[in-house]
């Protein structure tokens, strides 16, 4: 009982510290963005977010995000399946390479693509003869976005598949089911929430990537500017209202992502409990 009493003071102190810390570091910046975005009134805000270049930047961001999500979903599922269902040599190295992109600075990520596809690269003449331009163009932006979100989906799936084991799949295989059928009927129902969560995380990061995309973008307004790059451009041109208005779109999306995460976690948990 004595212990309980002591904990109450400690609890009060720790909870207060946490609220202040998160309030200053996380909530205040959000509030500031919203207030600054609305400084010139609703009309000014609508004007800023419906600017032709803002919309083009948003469309490019969506395009890069969709590509990243599709590629990483295909990759994530097949890599997670490969790693958890089979025993083979080099598994550890494979995992290391999959996780590598998130430990590398975004700027270095951009740099390695410049070295691969840039003018000094031996691939450049081949690509150029087909008229394919990768760096300082949209494909570079898409590649950079895929890179920085590369392990997001496989990393969510691997723990779930490991915990699940392979018994059910083995049973299905022995009963004569093919790969596609086993995946669809046996594996997929187990991983769907983890997959959805991975997709949400991937979407969030892909929309907001700045460093790597900044290296590979030609910074052409309306052509190779993503939303975060467009925000930088406005900010550097001292159009703070515009910059914060465009930012507010990404703030809303970030909040949606956080809420989705809580919902998915809850649903996934419920299903797990039901299965038990």
């Amino acid at each position, binding site marked *: 009982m004595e*212990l309980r009493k002591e904990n109450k003071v400690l*609890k009060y102190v*720790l*909870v207060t*510290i*946490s*609220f202040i810390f*998160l309030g200053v*570091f996380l*909530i*205040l*910046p*959000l509030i*500031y*963005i919203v207030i600054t975005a609305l400084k010139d009134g609703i009309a000014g805000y609508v004007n800023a977010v419906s600017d032709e270049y803002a919309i083009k930047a948003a469309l490019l961001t969506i395009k890069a995000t969709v590509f990243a999500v599709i*590629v990483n979903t*295909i*990759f994530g599922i*097949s*890599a997670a*399946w490969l790693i958890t*269902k089979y*025993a*083979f040599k080099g598994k550890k190295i494979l995992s290391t*390479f999959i996780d*590598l992109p998130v*430990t590398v*600075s*975004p*700027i*270095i990520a951009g*740099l*390695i*693509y410049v*070295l691969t596809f840039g003018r000094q690269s031996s691939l450049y003449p081949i690509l150029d003869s087909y008229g394919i331009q990768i760096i300082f163009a949209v494909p570079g932006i898409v590649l950079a976005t895929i*890179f920085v979100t590369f392990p997001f989906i496989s990393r969510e799936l691997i723990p779930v598949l490991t915990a699940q084991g*392979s018994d059910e799949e*083995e049973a299905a295989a022995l009963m004569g089911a093919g*790969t596609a059928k*086993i995946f669809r009927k046996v594996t997929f129902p187990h991983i769907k929430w983890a997959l959805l969560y991975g997709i949400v995380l991937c979407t*969030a*990061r892909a*929309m*907001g990537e700045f*460093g790597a995309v*900044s*290296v590979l973008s030609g910074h052409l307004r309306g052509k190779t500017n993503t939303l*975060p790059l467009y*925000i*930088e451009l406005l900010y550097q041109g001292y159009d703070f209202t515009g*910059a*914060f208005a465009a*930012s507010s779109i990404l*703030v809303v999306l*970030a*909040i949606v*992502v*956080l*809420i989705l*995460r809580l919902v998915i976690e809850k649903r996934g948990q419920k299903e797990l409990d039901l299965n038990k």
Partner: protein
Amino acid sequence: MNNRRSVIPGFGISLGITITILSIVVLIPLCSLVVFSAKLSLSEFVYTVTRPRILSGYFVSISTAFIASVVNVVMGLILAWILVRYDFKGKRFIDGIIELPFALPTAVAGISLTHLTTTNGWVGQIFYKLFGIKIAYTRIGITVALIFIGIPFVVRSVQPVLEKIDIQYEEAAFILGADSRTTFRKVIFPEILPAIISGFTLAFARSIGEYGSVVFIAGNTPYETEIAPLLIMSELQEYDYSAATSIALVMLGISVIILSINAVAQGIVSKRVNGKA
């Protein structure tokens, strides 16, 4: 699962898809980094990375990332603790909002933190008027941005471990006469230490490479607030790929060292914990 040939079909196709995408996205670009690095002359490499401006860039990046990560270890521990051990109003909100730095684009966080901490910003003016401390456009500002970026790492690695600790051990310690401080130090701390180290390492590695949130708040004054990733960026903008690659190689080396320290520390700690048990 131990038998080499699994009965589950689909090994070939999943291997094929995985290796193809991995090659295009990671392996080929990585190879081109290796090939390009091999072409650098050693003297040029040494000259580039030992330029005072570059050295100061490394120093700024490492020191601010280190301080920010230490702050995040302390705050991360507190946050994980209150989320696991206490019930209070707004707990779900805190649990949700912690992930914000992952969800919010770094550039957006960067411009907002910058405006808040300039000498006439909401927070900045308080510090400037009361203590004469400038936050934005100084190393303190860089540290602030890196604290923001690193918040989720320690919380998310400590939280699950803390949840799994059996309360019985603490009760036993208490019955044996240990006060709560001793219990924390001797019973709980050793259990969560590996998670703290890995959270710290992840936050540290991420902070060293961080660009988006830092460029706005840093002010980017040479020798003062220029971070290493920014130096790579400026070399790239001048199309000096050799210099950019040289700076990047040192940074990659630093990351490898940090991640290896983590691996070694994990090994030592797990040995110690398991040895005691």
